């Protein structure tokens, strides 16, 4: 117990010794410009909306930018296009969409230089729900299997091929 205490204390003292230097450096930290508020494809979580609708069409490979799967929804207030991200991420999670499906999406509209697009963070169909983006709006397909649980990682490790 005494040894543990000493080790912790030593760590604390080391941190204190570093502190004066850090204060000096903190005073020298450079200022950075304010981020632009109107650049393309920012995701503002405070502007999230829940939208329910019926799938009019689903495109795994969008013929026009941006890259990624797209859905046209019929909602109570009209039709709208929503962007889902990587079609492969949907497929790998066994989430499939077809004309006539009733879905609910959570997401936010983002301004682009070419217009406005609705980016989906969460999609639900029947009893199935799939997160497509992080809270900051980054597509979860960037991380792919890294988003799985430790137990799932361990299971995958037994199936891994050459690395």
């Amino acid at each position: 117990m005494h040894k543990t205490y000493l080790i912790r204390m030593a760590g604390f003292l080391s941190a204190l010794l570093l502190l004066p230097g850090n204060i000096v450096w903190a005073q020298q930290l450079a200022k950075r410009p304010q981020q632009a508020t109107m650049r393309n494809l920012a995701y503002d979580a405070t502007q999230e909306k829940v939208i329910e609708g019926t799938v009019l069409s689903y495109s795994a490979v969008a013929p026009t930018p941006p890259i990624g799967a797209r859905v046209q929804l019929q909602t109570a207030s009209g039709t709208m296009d929503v962007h889902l991200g990587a079609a492969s991420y949907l497929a790998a999670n066994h989430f499939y969409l077809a004309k006539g499906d009733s879905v609910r999406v959570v997401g936010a509209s983002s301004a682009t230089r070419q217009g406005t697009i609705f980016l989906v963070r969460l999609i639900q169909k029947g009893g199935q729900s799939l997160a497509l983006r992080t809270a900051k709006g980054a597509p979860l397909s960037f991380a792919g299997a890294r988003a799985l649980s430790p137990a799932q990682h361990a299971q995958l490790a037994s199936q891994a091929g050459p690395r």
Partner: protein
Amino acid sequence: MNRSIMRLLPLVAILVASLTTACNNGGTIVGPPPPPPTGTFSNASLKGQYAFLMTGTELCGGLSSAFTRAGSFTADGSGRITGGLEDVNVCTGVFTLQFTNSMYSITADGRGTLHLTNSTGTTSYSLTLTSPTQGLIAQTDGNVTAGGSFQRQNTAAFSNPAIANGYVFDFTGINDSLNPESVIGRFTADGAGGINTGLFDSNEAGTASNQQLFPTGAFYQLDTNGDGTNFGRGTANIAGHNFAFYIVDATRLKLLGTDFPAEFSGEAFAQQNINFTASLLNSGFAFLLGGASSTGPIATAGRFTADGGGNITDVVLDENNSGNITLLPNGTVTGSYTVDPNQLGGGTLTWTDSKVPGSFSFIFYLISPTEAVFQEIDSGITSDGTFHAQTAGPLTAAGLAGDFAFVWSGVDTDELDFVGQLNLTSASGNNASGIMDFNEFGAGKQFFDIQFSGPLTIPAPGTGANTLSVTTTFPSARTFNFTAYAVDSNTVFLVGAETNRVSVIAGSLSRQP
């Protein structure tokens, strides 16, 4: 100059990791027999110990995932890899693996193949040498694709004391929150494993951190189990992240993040030991950036002029944001820059175009007055790369004529990695031709010896937006349209897309001897 290529790749590969799937439907595809390669390269050109770093996409449990590998291999000059070690950060964790019984082959034009075997199996690569001391590389396995570079190691630098004084770094990847993140900065190594004066700027999913101090606990340490002296491997904590590193030489380290499920990689470069001020930035610069936006991949290339007094002029750029193209100048462009008062090489740069919404804002850390790591911090964009002092010009087709190695990475529906050789002639018209291998991520989607040709168009004075359009005819007609920004007659940055496909592709050309 090849270091610039490597800085782009992690970024592009990460963004690229977003949109991938794979299938299992056959073997590789080889193009029609090309003319016999010409040049002075051979198996003997690859001889010695080389450090490598690659980033890309792997298929894991049906999900495409970003991964990275860094390591060291020893080539005997006769087609055999006699040893080596690598660290991989894959979807199942971080592992250190030793190479055994591996092989390579190099043809006269510097192109070749490499097969690396470890305890998990054999991985395959295509490569192009830019010289006997370095090259560009792409992984060509069915369920794994990646791009990167390698450089010959100086074994005399495999020690803690060799790593001393200032270093600038750029690493990028996926953080613990599964967001894309770019971290650039600088630190001072004390030659004994200690790190001080550490500063960094991070950008997580388009949110900038402002300049930060390194958290406590920063260090670097060459391995003491033999891997340090044999392979130049060590471990480090930089800007709060844990890494394995491989020493190229005292001026360059290749870094692979060992935290999991985070996945970072990048490089560190010795920083010139001077007091950095705004007046030192006094020329044209060409730049290349890659990363992610909220919809997918983004790549930007261009050029600007810094006047030594804080003003930016003559901005030209191409931004491909998930297929949406923005070109500057559109209206009137105005810009400015600052260099941090602490004179440690950090700084800011911004410009606006009167006809384009928003501004373009960046952070940089100078390696020298002619070279920097470069990070875009506009809202919603996580992107980084490099800028290099640009030749005053003029640049002409005659000046650019010769052989180049290239590596491109990108995304359409899947990640794409290309590596090959391009020949430019001084003729007008169809003056570019070459041959490449590429991987479209998926069994049966590896293409070898694919020939292409097309025009490189260079409007005077050649330091602005040039165009390179090359077409393949096998296995199907495909045209790649790039805007080409020349750093000088030896290095060209490329950003573009394919005709008839929504895609983002970026890379660079590096002159062969």
